[in-house]
């Protein structure tokens, strides 16, 4: 790992200043559980790391009635264990509880996860299915616009995610088929029946990152049952293929996970 300058700002303004001052090579660090593994393999070499740990106000979970707002620095374990999330959007708590392992959940954050937009990460599917809004230091971005393909988002280089706001759905569930080695999603499907109708969002399967399955959404709109999606095959074109799962198998798993998620909605 190449060396860098570590910054520990104590306000959002300081963080933004450090980020801009560091120039092209400056990066935010939240839990570091996506960034540090990449840096350890020398696949990224920032000149400056700006920690969000000391920035106040990024670690709260708030119940806004028809929505739940999760601060960017909330750890996965915090979301999984939050009474508010468990009561209002249990699917989100359960999803967070299935990220990585216990130590990853103690360190990784929602802000880092959405900003990183790993094509096999779980949060992107939850955000898109639930129709979440990503709140930054300067604007609000709907998930439909936020996630822009593998490791790409709508964020500007110096933009900080401060929170993610999830509308409370009538029902929702997440089903994940994990890679047996890495435990990231091979196919993770979040199904939500929310204010914007039924949404089905898939992660892990596509090289383009999270995507929605219109045909499944239509089928569920007509009849919200596992059977309704069990027959909807997704194309294996553009699916990821690796030693654990080829494109055909992934496509198949998307359908199976969608069915299971719908069934888990009760």
């Amino acid at each position, binding site marked *: *790992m*190449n060396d860098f300058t570590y910054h520990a700002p104590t306000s959002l303004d300081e963080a933004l200043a450090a980020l801009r001052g560091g120039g092209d090579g400056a990066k935010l660090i939240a839990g570091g559980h996506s960034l540090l593994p990449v840096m350890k*393999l020398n696949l990224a070499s920032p000149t400056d790391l700006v920690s969000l740990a000391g920035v106040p106000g990024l670690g709260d979970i708030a119940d806004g009635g028809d929505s739940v707002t999760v601060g960017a620095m909330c750890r996965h374990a915090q979301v999984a264990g939050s009474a508010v999330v468990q009561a209002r959007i249990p699917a989100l708590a359960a999803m967070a509880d299935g990220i990585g392992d216990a130590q990853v959940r103690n360190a990784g954050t929602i802000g880092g996860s959405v900003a990183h937009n790993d094509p096999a990460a779980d949060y992107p599917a939850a955000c898109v299915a639930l129709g979440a809004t990503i709140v930054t230091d300067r604007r609000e971005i709907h998930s439909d616009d936020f996630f822009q393909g593998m490791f790409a988002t709508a964020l500007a280089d110096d933009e900080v995610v401060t929170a993610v706001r999830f509308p409370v759905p009538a029902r929702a569930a997440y089903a994940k*088929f994990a*890679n*047996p*080695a*890495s435990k990231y999603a091979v196919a993770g499907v979040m199904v939500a029946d929310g204010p914007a109708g039924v949404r089905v969002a898939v992660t892990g399967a596509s090289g383009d990152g999270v995507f929605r399955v219109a045909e499944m959404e239509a089928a569920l709109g007509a009849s919200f049952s596992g059977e309704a999606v069990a027959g909807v095959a997704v194309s294996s074109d553009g699916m990821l293929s*690796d*030693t*654990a*799962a*080829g494109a055909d*198998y992934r496509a*198949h*798993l998307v359908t*199976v996970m969608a069915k299971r998620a719908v069934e888990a909605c009760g």
Partner: protein
Amino acid sequence: MSANGSGIGASVKRKEDTRFLTGRGRYTDDINLPGQLYGYILRSPVAHADIGGIDTSAAAAAPGVHAIFTGSDMEGVGGIPTGWLIHSKDGEPMVEPGHPALALGKVRYVGDCVAIVVAETREQAKEAANLIDVDYQELPAVASIEAAEAEGAAQVFDEAPGNVCYDWEVGDRAATDAAFDEATHVVSIDVVNNRLIPNAIEPRAAIANYDPATGDYTLYTTSQNPHLIRLLLGAFVLGLPEHKLRIVAPDVGGGFGSKIPHYAEEAILTWTAGQLGRPVKWTCERIDAFKSDTHGRDHISTARLALDADGKFLGLHVSTKANLGAYLSTFATCVPTYLYGILFAGPYTTPAVYCEVKSFFTNTVPVDALRGAGRPEATYLLERLVEKAAVELGMDRVEIRRKNFIREFPYQTPVALQYDQGDYDATLDLALKASDWAGFEARRAESAARGKCRGIGISTFIEACGIAPSAVVGSLGARAGLYESGSVRVHPTGSVSVFTGTHSHGQGHETTFAQIVSDMLGVDFEAVDVVHGDSAKIPFGMGTYGSRSLAVGGTAIYLAVEKVIEKGKKIAAHLLEASVEDIEFENGSFTVAGTDRSKSLGEVALTAYVPHNYPEGLEPGLEETAFYDPLNFTFPAGTHVAEVEVDPETGEVEVVAVTGADDVGRIINPMIVDGQLHGGLAHGIGQALLEECLYQDDGQLQTGSYLDYTMPRAADLPSFNINHNTTLCTHNPLGVKGVGEVGSIGVPPAVINAVIDALRPLGVNDMAMPATSQKVWQAIQQAQG
């Protein structure tokens, strides 16, 4: 022998645990020597290339760099040797190409050592290594057995045409052919034994030092067999006499075979320390461990079983191709031959057995022993074939095995081994009962009601441990003896130090061996300490592998204790003014038979060291050494039963139950023995369901990290149901056999047989290891058309 609370047969808590549990273990990477530098090994990123040139100038100028050495610097140094010479069918010796520690002119696998950079810090060494410019002129690579044997395949070594190292055979081919002529049924099978990456959780590490004042070298290394390293490194590579080369293998975090071989890095580090006159430390990164720790297994086989009308086995014919990787690692050549072919009688009376093995060089990491080493490959093939025979003949899977069991001992197999003792019916019966084999159909129905396919599988197997005797293995090509040493030093006040040439890296020797000694000498368990892992402290030793430590090393200790007792009797007789023949030793006391006149071991020991009143002509001191060369292998045996549940929608296989019924000989510490079985079972289930080393055709490793090589985790495994039935080994005094590899030998075929049993109703009749969810799903798709 007296049974006391910490003696033979007691589940004594381990002596080593306190240090490990409090973070006070001392593993190689925990050691730091004053003035040490850090070495980083630059490895080949390509599988096969001519090295056009190496430009180290930029790296040499990088901050903190002390030295850079490449193959040409080490040219005069000996190559890495291999420990076993195999002869081909035609009597020719195997092809044995040189293995320079640092690549010379050519690289032959991704991970081959190209240069060492020595710097002030680890990071500096690594950063500088990235500045080395190597001109790799890439050559076509062969990354698999199929590629290696193809027409016109690239040659890994010019001197090995067709990439063949040897073409070996064992057994009587004519007799086997004749058996097939007589057969009513012939059942054949093709199997692949998947290539595995060992992945001890402690990565390899080494720290070498050279003292210019004395000329002494010291190497701390993560080894299962420090004396063997000293022998190979000293005699073959560096040309150093034993008394100038000390090898220390301190606490070692698991081996599983991967820490047996003498590795190039050990030679490079030691030589470099000599060049620089300063200690040099190296710790393998896991990413590099994947491409430099020896791999295991990697066979392709085809086999035929001849049966009579009743299902009696008449003959077995096995043809195997084995992948040896790019160079011959220490035991590489013997694993697919003398640890494999001679296992094919299994527990069965098959009168004619023939096995031929052709081994290939490929542009992959060298392959060597991995937990079981040869025996899992043999057992998997045999137990898959026997299972297939039962299905094809419409016989009961259990009955076909029982029908063919060996029941008279000693039993001479047609493939060299002579089994001394066993009771295969007993372990089979025990396993059937403990696994509730009879009640399985109800469980299958219950699973089916939940949409799951349940299956049960069995394997009955034998194992050969403690490879020996030296004269025999020598005649078969071994270049070392396979005995063991043990020394017992009774101190003046009666406490005891035990020195063993075996090495403990998880097996608990410090506890088990202390139990034996404490039991035999009647001294407190706490008063006995076991010393291992340091060539400066221990007379000699062959180390720990092949489940040999207790059977061979434990016996050496046993014999040394007997010598101590013999000598003690002479001293006691003198003190008690009796004749030596009248002295009995029990529970730590020397007693004149039929009287209450006695002397304690402590009193005798004190007398031995303060010999004021002492038998004339007897040497003072109470310390004895024994070397034990076994008369035969030991033969643990058993039955493993696996029960699985398959999710037909996703192809996921869950292991719901595993039952072992094992005969491992006398059990010294049941807690430790069961722990060894658990570990082996997990390794075996890993091979059956999860683990697979994959290479691309160009020789790039596809499964090069824990992100894509699946290690068994807690949630992948059930709790294990372990049962024992003991028959004693007849040719060692403790009656012990060995346990470290049993699980990884017995369970893989049981798991695969269970998976196929689960899927048979769906039309699936075969399954290769590992039965990953994708593979299972594909098989179901195919069967369903």
